[in-house]
């Protein structure tokens, strides 16, 4: 098993269809295959431990990914926005590597003895197909190494083997299932798991890929119109900005987009509700997954979104906050602190099992238990019908008076206030309680009364969840892939704590 099999099938089945880029000057599946072979031939000439990509999205991304797979070398996309020292640290951890990057990154990385770096432009200039020996079909070969964003510490490298990625695609995508007019807009960066998964899914489906070099809401909207985009995936912060930009432009609905999927973080319900109105006939998909699970493991489909939008039934409305149900071949289980499986409605840690679940870091080895279960470190619960509700990282749990409370649960309650656009809850040190709750709110049209916020939480949850402080900000700190930086908030609001040290 090798992800090259997916590209080879596309090149056999749809040789002349545009795989990536604009219809007039993009690369066909056959051309993408040939370029991957040319790249592989060069990689095979060197004795490599990694192929590093450090640049914005471009056609070079799939060429590096498949070229590396063909040559049997792990593909390692790095965050080109990192500070020079951090980038050098990560590249050093890759060992003997061929690096492809923007001019500045290439120059920087080339300083390392073990790295041979070249600019993306010169990498893509080598187009003539040179025969490469056939690729390995060992399913255990490492296809991709993805560094975690390190929001909670030193970045770890998640290991994805060919069998994980191929299993994910075969289980979730129909070969050549896309119509000839379909095109997907990729706006997540290459070093995000969705940046890898979107390439594999779209190529296997036969859906043309259009990339945004870097995300900008107006650019995104214009590209959707210009390129006839039918499918797109965004992280929540991107959708917030798209909705704002559309409203600034006068609020005309977008009708051409058939499918819009979002995931990778907490989606504020009010934003989603506005998006459902601005994209009135688009199929919305909420996907939940992790780097360690080869992307999506549960999804909330289009019908559930529209049902929730128009329903008066609270259960159906509430489904908008759900991550949906498990993909075929994926098992989900909620467990308490002692590992005991929880009944429907009971909150605990989300465990997942399936062929696509890698659950492995280079630094720690496999973290799967004997039965193949992976602990996501996300908290949440399943409802009676198997819908998963994710309530945030267990590392973010607030412990007040010995009671564990998930920020997500409190945030979900606060978000039901019509004038709350976004919210984060954190714990700050408290002499009396250990920690107490601070709610940091981005207000909507008017600033809500803090008393109303507290009353809302008291009414929906236990009184222990009521914020001790309600603060207002213009914007919450997210990283570029939409992960909320709670660490930054905890630092910013540490002065609200009353415990020493």
């Amino acid at each position: 098993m090798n992800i090259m099999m997916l590209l080879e099938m596309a090149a056999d089945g749809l040789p002349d269809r545009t795989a990536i880029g604009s219809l007039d000057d993009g690369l066909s599946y056959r051309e993408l295959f040939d370029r991957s072979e040319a790249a592989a031939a060069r990689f095979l000439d060197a004795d490599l431990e990694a192929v590093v990509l450090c640049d914005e999205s471009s056609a070079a991304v799939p060429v590096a990914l498949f070229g590396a797979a063909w040559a049997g070398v792990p593909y390692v996309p790095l965050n080109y926005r990192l500070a020079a020292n951090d980038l050098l640290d990560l590249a050093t951890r890759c060992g003997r590597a061929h690096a492809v990057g923007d001019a500045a990154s290439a120059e920087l990385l080339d300083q390392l003895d073990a790295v041979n770096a070249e600019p993306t432009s010169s990498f893509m200039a080598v187009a003539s197909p040179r025969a490469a020996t056939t690729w390995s079909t060992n399913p255990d070969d490492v296809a991709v190494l993805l560094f975690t964003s390190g929001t909670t510490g030193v970045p770890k490298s998640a290991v994805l083997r060919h069998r994980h990625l191929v299993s994910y695609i075969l289980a979730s995508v129909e070969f050549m299932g896309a119509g000839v007019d379909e095109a997907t807009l990729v706006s997540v960066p290459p070093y995000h798991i969705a940046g890898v998964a979107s390439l594999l899914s779209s190529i296997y489906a036969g859906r043309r890929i259009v990339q945004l070099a870097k995300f900008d809401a107006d650019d995104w909207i214009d590209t959707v119109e210009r390129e006839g985009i039918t499918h797109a995936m965004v992280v929540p912060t991107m959708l917030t900005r798209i909705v704002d930009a559309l409203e600034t432009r006068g609020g005309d609905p977008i009708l051409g987009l058939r499918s819009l999927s979002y995931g990778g973080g907490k989606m504020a319900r009010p934003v989603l509700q506005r998006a459902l109105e601005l994209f009135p006939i688009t199929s919305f998909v909420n996907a939940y997954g992790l780097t360690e699970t080869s992307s999506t493991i549960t999804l909330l489909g289009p019908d559930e979104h529209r049902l929730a939008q128009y329903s008066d039934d609270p259960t159906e409305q509430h489904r908008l906050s759900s991550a949906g149900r498990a993909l075929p071949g994926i098992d989900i289980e909620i467990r308490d602190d002692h590992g005991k499986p929880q009944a429907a409605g009971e909150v605990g840690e989300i465990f997942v099992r399936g062929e696509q679940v890698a659950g492995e870091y280079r630094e720690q080895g496999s973290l799967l238990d004997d039965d193949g279960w992976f602990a996501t470190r996300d908290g949440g619960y399943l409802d009676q019908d198997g819908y998963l509700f994710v309530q945030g990282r267990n590392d973010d749990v607030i412990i007040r008076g010995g009671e564990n409370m998930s920020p997500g649960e409190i945030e979900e309650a606060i978000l039901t206030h019509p004038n709350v656009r976004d919210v984060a809850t954190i714990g700050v040190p408290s002499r009396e309680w250990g920690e107490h709750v601070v709610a940091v709110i981005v207000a909507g049209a008017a600033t809500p009364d803090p008393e109303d916020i507290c009353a809302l939480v008291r009414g929906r949850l236990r009184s222990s969840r009521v914020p001790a402080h309600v603060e207002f900000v213009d914007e919450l700190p997210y990283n570029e892939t939409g992960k909320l930086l709670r660490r930054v908030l905890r630092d910013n609001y540490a002065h609200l704590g009353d415990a020493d040290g």
Partner: protein
Amino acid sequence: MVELKPGARFQSTVCTTQVIVVKGTGETDLTCGGAAMVAAGAVEISGSPTSDAADGTLLGKRYGNEEANIELLATKAGDGSLAANGEALSVAEAKTLPASD
């Protein structure tokens, strides 16, 4: 007879068909075009499918048996049709999951 296991790849000896095992384990009489399939590799194609096994295999389609304990994905198309333990395999229904990434 070949040993089925998920991920194993086999090819026809009488046409260009190649498959990867999605589901199925154990000793199986796997044929394509009426001839036994072999492990994928550099194997010469000779002869042609027998007339009762020449409906063809389509690229990217999944083929399964009645009992649904064998499923093969065609990674290369060919003129021969697939059978397992004497039973002709038929195209499995397409999945309809929405695109999520």
